[in-house]
């Protein structure tokens, strides 16, 4: 009985946990297919694919992706190399200095990203000045600074991944290679590197992902190379559209795809290794497709996902939500009109009351289209953010404030104003 309760509570906990973890991603993905100009899943209006189109026409996003890839490649190269060197050094250094050394190379993980960004910026700026170079020198180049700044801590992650594998490496292997006539470089390339390859691949992927999503450090160093994350942050802070959801959806899809492919590949390798152990030596390339799928749930999911994607893309090219959007617009217009009417009536009443109290003053107030002091914090809405929403609610300028999703926009704009208010 007690056991049963425990079991149920474990599953409830797991359910809640994964809802917390995955729910936001699912909902965000869903908003990419909803027609309102502000990303939201409820109420559901019309299924649309237009945000994907909008995404691919956004020059800044595309440019950001390109910069991110450049930075990512540089960071992967530098941090995997440094991480590997750091890990090798860790296994060779004497016990006395090891703890100091370990603290130094692990510290960047714990140093806040903003601090790393600042110190990188300050340090290389100083070097630049010491060398008497101008503001357009290589050392003050955003690409260089971002790669350097990110690598500082990403190399630590790589080091951790690599050292885990390196601990299982038998240094005698290198000695054996040397003994058989290999040079140190040959032993490194032919023995150590192949052994480390899986870990190097993991470290590389990890480094790329960490670089791709980095914001805290990059925001100080990017210069004239805004990465995707920087562009996204700009967009999210100063007005969001479901095009971002569309981008998120694509990234989620790619991630799930990559994860499943990796999983399926691991399963496949395991199976080949097993088959070899049993004595049969199947040709690795000879594994047929059905064989690839058999007993490999990840592979099955992968194929299903691929089919699903193709179907959706196929539908998307044929599907047009125009009619639906028009319908919703009409409904909204009617609703809005009704609300305006109500409001007008209310205001009429207010005005009558105010008039009774104050006379002329209320007249001027009414003539402003957006009465910014209407609600207590009206003036904190950045105008740019509002305009995003205006498209769908164009006919209802005033209610948009009252409807309240105003302050989901750009809290940052709010903060700055608010601070000045509070001082």
């Amino acid at each position: 009985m007690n056991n049963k309760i425990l079991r149920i509570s474990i599953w409830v906990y797991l359910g809640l946990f994964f809802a917390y973890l995955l729910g936001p991603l699912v909902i965000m993905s869903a908003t990419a297919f909803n027609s309102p100009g502000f990303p939201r899943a409820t109420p559901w209006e019309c299924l649309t694919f237009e945000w994907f189109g909008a995404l691919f026409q956004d020059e800044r996003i595309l440019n950001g992706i390109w910069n991110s890839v450049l930075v990512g490649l540089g960071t992967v190269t530098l941090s995997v190399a440094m991480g590997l060197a750091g890990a090798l050094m860790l296994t060779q250094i004497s016990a006395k200095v090891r703890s100091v050394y370990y603290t130094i190379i692990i510290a960047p993980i714990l140093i806040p990203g903003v601090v790393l960004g600042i110190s990188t910026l300050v340090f290389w700026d100083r070097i630049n000045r010491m060398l008497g170079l101008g503001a357009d020198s290589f050392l003050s180049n955003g690409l260089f600074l971002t790669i350097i700044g990110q690598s500082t801590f990403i190399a630590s992650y790589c080091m951790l991944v690599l050292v885990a594998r390196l601990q299982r490496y038998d240094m005698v292997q290198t000695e054996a290679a040397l003994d058989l006539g290999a040079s140190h470089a040959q032993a490194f390339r032919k023995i150590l590197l192949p052994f480390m390859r899986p870990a190097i691949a993991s470290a590389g992927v990890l480094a790329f992902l960490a670089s791709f999503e980095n914001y805290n450090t990059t925001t100080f160093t990017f210069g004239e190379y805004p990465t995707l994350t920087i562009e996204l942050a700009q967009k999210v802070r100063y007005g969001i559209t479901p095009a971002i959801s569309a981008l998120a959806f694509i990234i989620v899809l790619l991630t799930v795809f990559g994860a499943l492919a990796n999983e399926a590949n691991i399963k496949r390798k395991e199976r080949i290794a097993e088959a070899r152990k049993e004595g049969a030596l199947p040709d690795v390339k000879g594994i047929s497709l059905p064989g690839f799928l058999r007993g490999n749930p990840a592979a099955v999911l992968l194929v299903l996902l691929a089919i699903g994607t193709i179907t959706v893309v196929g539908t998307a090219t044929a599907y047009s939500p125009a009619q639906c959007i028009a319908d919703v617009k009409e409904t909204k217009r009617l609703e809005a009109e009704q609300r305006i009417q109500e409001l007008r009536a209310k205001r009429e009443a207010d005005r009558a009351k105010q008039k009774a109290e104050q006379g002329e003053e209320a007249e001027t107030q009414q003539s402003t289209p957006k009465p910014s002091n209407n609600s207590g914090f009206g003036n904190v809405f950045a105008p740019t953010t509002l305009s995003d929403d205006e498209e769908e609610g164009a006919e209802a300028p005033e209610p948009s404030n009252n409807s309240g999703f105003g302050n989901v926009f750009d809290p940052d704009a709010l903060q700055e104003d608010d601070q000045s208010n509070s001082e």
Partner: protein
Amino acid sequence: MTGFLKEFFNRNGIGVGAIMLGLVLFWTIGLIVLPQLSMLDFSFRPNLPPPEIGGPKDVYTLENYKYLVFGPEGGGQDYNAVDLRVFYRTLIAAALVTIFNLILCYPISYYLGQSEGNHIRIFALMLIIPYWINEILRAFALRIIFGETGVLNTVLIGSGVFDQPFDFIRNDIALYAGLGYAYILLMIFPMYNVIESLDRNQIEAARDLGAPWWRIHWRVVIPYAKPGISSGCTMVFMLSAGALAAPQILGGPSSLWFTQLIYQQFNDNNDWPQGAAYAVVLLVTCIALVLAVMRLFKVNMGDIGK
């Protein structure tokens, strides 16, 4: 030292050894130690236009640190109440986020570490996937949920819990949820690693001796998992305190995060030394706090990252 170098080059060869040593030195000295020292040095200097840097006015000063405590000179206030409050609040909130994450993640780490079967791999995958998705987008996703017309409010109003939208963002709930969300994996991973290596027989033995489940955890699992727990907590605390994206996107209008002040000093006020001073204060305070807590719980720095 020369003995070490000789041995090092003997073992690795001149070429490979030189490249290795070069990379390690570049990383540790050029990327880690010198930039931090440089920032520290910079934080003691006045904010000067570029031509005057290195000139007669470029002298060491405590001005930037004074500013954090006392505010602008002649500012009419005894203390820089606004910035100090932000600083204090950031640390408290980061600590709360850490505790929240620990409570949330301990059960799942234990579950993953001590269960077997195919579903564990799938759970692990489900854990990792969100972390392959951009930090900004994760915060963005939460904003969609916690917005005033977001999913959560729609559900809560629809089910009659509230009769009008609750402002999750103004109340910082979105921010805490976002920070917690951002670092779940960093909490789970070290704990999972340690718990996984715990011999299941120890738990069986304790159960056999009649210990109730909470006592098994309190006396067997948690002491064993202490390095993992401290490692996870340290990372989550440091990263939450140093977070910038989540507070910028999910922060309420009246609550700044300390990193945002640093950001403002750099990008809006263009006062780099001031920003550097704030960064130094943040870094030093966080490290001091972490070390103090680690001493309190008797764990070593060497356990971090394992």
